[in-house]
């Protein structure tokens, strides 16, 4: 008899501790049940199993809904109070030990981890509010936590080149081969709200389309001579001027030359006063790709510069753009824009005008093509160029002549020297 009762006591104790682990609510209930069971003379084993089954049945719903209040931990070294800085917000899912907030006390930053996995239900102290050891901090709803909300806004604004631009980037060609190495685009969910940048770009592009009578004329440029010139001089150029000699300077200078020759392309219509504003200076906006997106800084008074001056200016602006140092005056004004879709590998395309200007030159990729030269077929490095212009101001003949002038300068820079 003695051994039996001892057995029961031991098992009763074990069952009790099992219940305690599950939830304090059940302790009293479990005790009563155990007492009843022992009183009825049931075997220890069946009591234990009955209790554990009951415990599990009662525990399951309680665990799922349990909301606990997490208190401020005691501070070290007898410090009394600190400021709370929230890392998580109401509704955020947290895992066990994940930092929910930091408390700054006396030059010390103390991390407060979550005691369990769950969802933040309520923050009991405002950000920056003062707490002492033991002050209730936040309420946590324990459980596996809600599925993470799909990261829609972030994925949508993931940088597709270019995204951070306040100016409308000329859309790359819709005709022709797509470059083989496209950057991997993350999957985009169905409905995404437009962010402000995109709204602004959209508005300005539509404005440009609605005011200007836009159309595009094309031509092609034989890049052999300019490539040869570049090859011959690039090392010496780098040595003397400490920057690389590219193709942009040729096109920028050619454009400036042509703009001086055809002032209408450098002018703009003032819709409010119904005037044509002619400008005797040539400020060219050049699209520069930076890690943050497309920026369009302006090179001032290009009509007075030579190739070297232009390369230096482009370089300087590119550096400033990359270091995020462009100022308002760097991007204001501009009488004409040049954009280079060639860096992405475009073959052909229609750029869109950048208001308040009247025309834009689009450069495309340089590809080897068979062309007719002096009655024979030769392989030459060719670039298609496009001029989108405002027909309200610039007539077809002027546009074509303008583009042909650019072509002649780039194909033979001696034209500049001889003022042909």
């Amino acid at each position, binding site marked *: 008899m003695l051994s039996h009762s001892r057995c029961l006591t031991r098992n009763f104790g074990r069952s009790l501790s099992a219940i305690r682990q599950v939830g304090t609510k059940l302790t009293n209930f479990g005790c009563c049940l155990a007492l009843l069971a022992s009183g009825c003379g049931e075997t220890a084993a069946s009591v234990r199993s009955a209790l554990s089954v009951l415990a599990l049945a009662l525990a399951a719903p309680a665990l799922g809904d349990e909301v606990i209040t997490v208190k401020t931990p005691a501070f*070290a070294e007898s410090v009394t109070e600190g400021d709370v800085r929230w890392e998580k917000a109401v509704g955020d899912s947290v895992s066990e030990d994940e930092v929910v907030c930091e408390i*700054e006390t006396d*030059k010390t*930053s*103390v*991390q407060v981890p979550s005691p369990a996995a769950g969802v933040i239900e309520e923050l009991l102290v405002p*950000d920056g509010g003062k707490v002492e050891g033991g002050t209730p901090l936040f309420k946590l709803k324990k459980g596996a936590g809600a599925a993470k909300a799909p990261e829609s806004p972030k994925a949508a604004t993931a940088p597709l080149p270019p995204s951070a631009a306040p*100016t409308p980037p000329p859309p790359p060609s819709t005709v022709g081969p797509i470059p083989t190495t496209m950057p991997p685009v993350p999957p985009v969910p169905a409905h995404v709200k437009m962010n402000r940048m995109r709204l602004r770009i959209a508005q300005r592009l539509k404005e440009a389309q609605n005011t200007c009578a836009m159309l595009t004329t094309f031509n092609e440029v034989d890049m052999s001579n300019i490539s040869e010139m570049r090859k011959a001089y690039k090392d010496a150029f780098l040595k003397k001027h400490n920057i690389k000699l590219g193709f942009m300077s040729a096109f920028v200078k050619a454009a400036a030359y042509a703009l001086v020759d055809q002032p209408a392309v450098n002018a703009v219509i003032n819709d409010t006063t119904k005037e044509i504003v002619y400008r005797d200076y040539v400020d060219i906006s050049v699209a520069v790709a930076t890690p943050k997106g497309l920026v369009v800084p302006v090179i001032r008074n290009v009509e007075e510069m030579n190739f070297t001056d232009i390369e230096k200016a482009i370089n300087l602006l590119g550096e400033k753009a990359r270091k995020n140092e462009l100022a308002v005056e760097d991007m204001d004004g501009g009488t004409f824009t040049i954009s280079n879709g060639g860096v992405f590998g475009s073959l052909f395309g229609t750029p869109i005008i950048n208001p308040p200007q009247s025309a834009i030159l689009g450069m495309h990729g340089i590809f080897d093509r068979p062309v007719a030269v002096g009655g024979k077929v030769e392989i030459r490095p060719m670039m298609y160029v496009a001029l989108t212009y405002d027909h309200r101001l610039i007539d077809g003949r002027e546009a074509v002549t303008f583009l042909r002038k650019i072509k002649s300068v780039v194909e033979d820079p001696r034209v500049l020297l001889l003022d042909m």
Partner: protein
Amino acid sequence: MLGTFCVLSAGVQRAWSSSSCLFMDPSSPGLVLQSQSTDVFQNLALEDWIDAHVDLQQRSILLLWRNRPTVVIGRHQNPWAECNLPAMRSAQVPVARRRSGGGTVYHDLGNLNLTFFASKKAYDRRRNLKVVTDALRRVRPQLDIQATDRLDILLNGRYKISGTASRLSRKSSYHHCTLLHSADRSAIAVLLRPSCPGIRSNATPSIPSPVTNLTDHAPSLQWEELLEAVVQQYSSEFGLTSSSQCVDPADEALFPGVGSMEAELRGWQWTFGKTPKFSVETQLELRDERPAARCSAQLQLEVKNGRVESCRVEVPATWLPERLSASLAQALLGERFCPHRAAAALSALLRCESGPLHSRLRNLCDVLVAAMG
């Protein structure tokens, strides 16, 4: 000067093939490390790495480091309120946010940083500071060195030569402090002032104190001598036998994952995006040239996570039509609180205007951008 920071008292510099060799020497209750790098982000990343990866339950570590000129703000501070970002940009002095609390400090090669790593149980800042004060008293007994209740170290009872900050994680802790050996005090005065007027925030403020260098009072104290004294005092206080070891915080083999920690510390999101919400309220002085005229406008901005959350620009309607000042305010929403970002956003707006309004709008843009530091 950068490479010669590693001063070894005796013995051979062991080549560490992995961090486990470095950190799990069971014979020693502690370790003294000297960083070879003077890049603040690399050094802060090393601190993070040690805090996250080394088992500090049985041992403590002292890390000695210094940085090229940098301004380091505390975890919960506001960089625009604490330092002059435009001046720092032209002087090419970066700003870094550390993970420990406390105020803003200026680091340069004359400022020694000491980080005491220990378990949470063994966290004792006074004991750490005693190592520093005892070391100083030993090498220059004539100097009056005292640690205060606020855990600063004062020279001659007045000048601060060391400030303290620390961080308590789940199981580990670190306490770091500066020690002014020969820093450029004129730079401190210029760089540690607000970037722009009218900032109102509940971020942790810095408490300015008069500072001095040890070399101003003990000109013969060499850098190496100071390091030696501290290392010896630490070793005797914590019962170590091994000498100090040089480490390269950029060594990914020794500290796997340190590179990404460094990248996070260097990023805009950590440095500026972690700023507690603040507002800017200031008056803008506008002017026009032809005809000469002036006007005052009110700017009110709320910045959250480093981005403009709300913006109001109140310009008299006689100066600029309301739609323009409204679209200007609208253009800044969601942009980073940064003069360059603002300039880019506003230039798009400017492009759409022409005529007499253009110059006034342009002036407003310039003044607004200048008010953003």
